[in-house]
């Protein structure tokens, strides 16, 4: 139970935090079509979050934060709104500030390509809930990846300014790319059990797919060292950048002001 729950939290938190960042674009995108598309991606990820948090709570109810007696807050919301930043297990890639549209697209390209590769394998999980989430997610993330790839190409081949911006954006997020393929003990354990996927197994595939987009776009893969962790700990261990606690301060403020509220 606990490993499975932890694994579900990892996948859920990736989606939740990424969804939050994308939702910050709402009413600020370069055009209405992009506003709608970014909200779509954010909504898909939010849907994944809810299923995964519910699965985590079912697999091990002890992961759900305790709330005041009689609180009607459901497990998914207790997990989303009442954990501190050190209990969030998302990769650090998703928590960084959006930056401009170029950086946002560069990150989404890397994120969606990676998560799609994970979910394609997760579709054959022995856990039927995870498998169902993955099957649904594969369709969604195929669109996310194609969307981001199309914009990456457009910006790289658009104007001088757009090329500079998307290359800067890719460079800025690239130090967080390495962490996506580091397999933690929990991930290895659920992978060994045929329930989860060890992310190092998708490294080569993701690499090839990204290389295709880069070479089509005429963009060189950045040479940036991986962002160090602290004492060997990174996002999957609850060790985040300074951005996450600020993000959560905003995300959780209303829920926490009303721990016995009904929404």
């Amino acid at each position, binding site marked *: 139970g606990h490993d499975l729950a932890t694994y579900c939290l990892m996948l859920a938190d990736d989606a939740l935090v990424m969804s939050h960042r994308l939702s910050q674009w709402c*009413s600020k995108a370069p055009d209405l079509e992009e506003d*709608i598309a970014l909200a779509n991606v954010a*909504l898909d990820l939010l849907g994944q979050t809810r299923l995964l948090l519910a699965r985590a709570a079912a697999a091990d109810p002890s992961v759900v934060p305790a709330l005041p007696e009689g609180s009607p807050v459901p497990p998914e*919301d207790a997990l989303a709104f009442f954990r501190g930043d050190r209990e969030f297990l998302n990769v650090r890639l998703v928590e960084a500030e959006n930056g401009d549209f170029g950086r946002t697209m560069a990150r989404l390209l890397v994120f969606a390509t990676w998560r799609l590769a994970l979910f394609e394998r997760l579709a054959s999980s022995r856990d039927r809930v995870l498998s169902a989430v993955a099957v649904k997610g594969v369709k969604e993330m195929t669109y996310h990846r194609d969307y981001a790839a199309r914009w990456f190409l457009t910006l790289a081949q658009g104007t001088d300014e757009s090329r500079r911006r998307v290359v800067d954006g890719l460079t800025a997020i690239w130090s967080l790319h390495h962490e996506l393929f580091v397999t933690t003990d929990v991930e290895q354990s659920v992978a060994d059990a045929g329930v989860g996927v060890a992310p190092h197994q998708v490294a080569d595939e993701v690499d090839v797919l990204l290389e295709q987009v880069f070479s089509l776009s005429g963009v060189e893969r950045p040479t940036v060292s991986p962002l160090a962790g602290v004492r060997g700990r990174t996002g999957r261990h609850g060790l985040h950048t300074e951005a996450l606690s600020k993000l959560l301060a905003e995300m959780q403020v209303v829920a926490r002001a009303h721990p016995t509220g009904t929404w």
Partner: protein
Amino acid sequence: MTVAPERDEQELLAQFESTIGHHDRIEPRDWMPDGYRRTVVRQVAQHAHSEIIGMQPEGNWITRAPSLRRKATLLAKVQDEAGHGLYLYSACETLGVSRNELTEMLINGKQKYSSIFNYPTLSYADVGVIGWLVDGAAICNQVPLCRTSYGPYGRAMIRVCKEESFHQRQGYELLATMMRGTDEQRAMVQESVDRFWWPALMMFGPPDDDSPNTAQSMAWGIKRNTNDDLRQRMVDMTVPQANALGVTLPDPDLRWNEEREAHDFGQPDWDEFKDVISGNGPCNAQRIEHRRRAWEDGAWVREAATAFAARSAGVADQ
């Protein structure tokens, strides 16, 4: 526009008026009087702008929504507003005005949007109240517009109305849920209703005797009902819902009138309405600054897309 000889114009006008008279649709390629065209453009653009500016007050709470379910609902709703904006701008484009031109006119204050979005959203209850009252008012306004005389506008409205009524039910449901919650939540709902009730009634525009364009718009079949008529419908529809929710509408003059079989109610503060419409509401400057910044910050992306499309077309041509 080609200049038609006088005789032809007479004939065209007769045909136009016959179409209007039969409650048939005017389509983009049909001949239409300039005044009609201008009025439709103005009204549809204003409607489109309202959808887009309307994303901000609710969007303000997406990152702070107190449950994941509500967050998804809210995000989807705001996304729908972008969608509505999109088809309304398209309807406008059928009359030869581009989305870019319309956006510039919005940002420069040459075109307006609904006064309601110039009020701030100050608690999560506002999300529910906007759904219930503001979308409720929008539906009262818009359902008749599904039969508006300009075809693309009417068809856009059919789609919009379907979604708006979904949003209205969601808003009501949020409030009903909050009213079953804590005392603080109930107080939050009431406080929000107190702030939004009068501005929601203002959404139908000034009283009929102070609404100079209504008669012509109705004659052309662009509008189908007077402002006061729609306002009355809104009040009559809302009162029983407010009772069911357990909230008080902040109008001491509100009561059922047996004779009229309708509610009597007080008048909104029309001076406030005029202030807000003329740019001096609590959030006018903020809403426009937000929109302008998004538009300016996105310019390089739109330029890149244009350049890329041109290049791709060039490659395809070879």
